[in-house]
């Protein structure tokens, strides 16, 4: 019997594909975010309000993943920004190969690429898509224990967006408790409270996006300048 040491990540093929995407987006200065949340957490609603607020001067595109249907792409296309649907036909997450395939032939430069993952708090966590950051969405109707029950995604996400805060008067959801739980798993996680219905918190979210996008763009420019020397 011969024993061969491997010592590689099981998903190293996915990681390699993600690295190619990351390199391309870095060169182009495109900020890429991977939005993850349960089915019904409000990912598409947040994206609708986001696209609505970003003018056509912002080069923004969306990849939206679902197991079946192009309902989300059709919802999102109404705002005048390019949108592509990824239908996974059963897979519970997006992987880097699906993203790479759907990025082929994308028109021109993008400032921002938003990827809406398949509704699921578990599996999407394992697959790097070449994003700059994962953003986890948690609706106030889901309960404040979620960061403890699904620690993986809350540990890996830079930002937690609490959604549907307009429903707080009608549900027993303890805002302070959810903040404590999230920070127990990930002390540095940023938190924004939003409502796609009333618009509360959306300015803060757009501000967060703009700051991140500017940072990414500045980094790309510095690298071009550096390479030119």
């Amino acid at each position, binding site marked *: 019997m011969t*024993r061969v040491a*491997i010592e590689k990540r099981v998903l190293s093929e996915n990681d390699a594909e993600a690295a190619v995407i990351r390199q391309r987006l870095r060169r182009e200065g495109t900020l890429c975010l991977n939005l993850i949340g349960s089915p019904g957490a409000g990912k598409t609603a947040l994206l609708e309000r986001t696209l609505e607020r970003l003018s056509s001067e912002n080069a923004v595109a969306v990849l939206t993943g679902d197991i079946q249907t192009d309902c989300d792409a059709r919802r999102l296309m109404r705002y005048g920004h390019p949108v592509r649907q990824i239908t996974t036909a059963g*897979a519970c997450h997006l992987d880097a190969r699906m993203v790479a395939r759907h990025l082929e032939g994308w028109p021109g430069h993008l400032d921002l690429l938003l990827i809406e993952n398949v509704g699921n708090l578990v599996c999407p966590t394992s697959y790097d898509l070449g994003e700059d950051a994962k953003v986890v969405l948690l609706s106030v109707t889901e309960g404040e224990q979620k960061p403890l029950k699904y620690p993986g995604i809350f540990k*890996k996400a830079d930002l937690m967006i609490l959604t549907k805060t307009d429903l707080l008067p009608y549900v027993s959801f303890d805002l302070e408790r959810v903040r404590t739980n999230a920070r127990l798993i990930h002390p540095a996680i940023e938190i924004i409270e939003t409502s796609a219905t009333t618009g509360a918190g959306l300015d803060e979210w757009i501000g967060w996006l703009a700051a991140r996008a500017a940072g990414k763009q500045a980094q790309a420019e510095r690298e071009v300048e550096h390479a030119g020397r």
Partner: protein
Amino acid sequence: MHEMGIACSILEAIQRELLPYPEKRAVKVAVRVGEMAGVDAESLRFCLEAITKNSESGPLELEIEICRSDELELAYLEIDDAERQVTA
């Protein structure tokens, strides 16, 4: 929930590792699964059994080491080298 996908990735990785050893067969694979990896060890075992038991390559023993982290790694592979013993 995505253990079947993970099991398929393990098989693909094994096939890549076996490229330098044509005619040889993997009999055992050791995988490290972190507690925070979001992968259920028993479900992974079930999926890997399901996709290997009737395959040409035959049964594959799976050793799972649970560790504290979010890693999901292939540790090592054992290859059946009966052929080598016969010729020795």
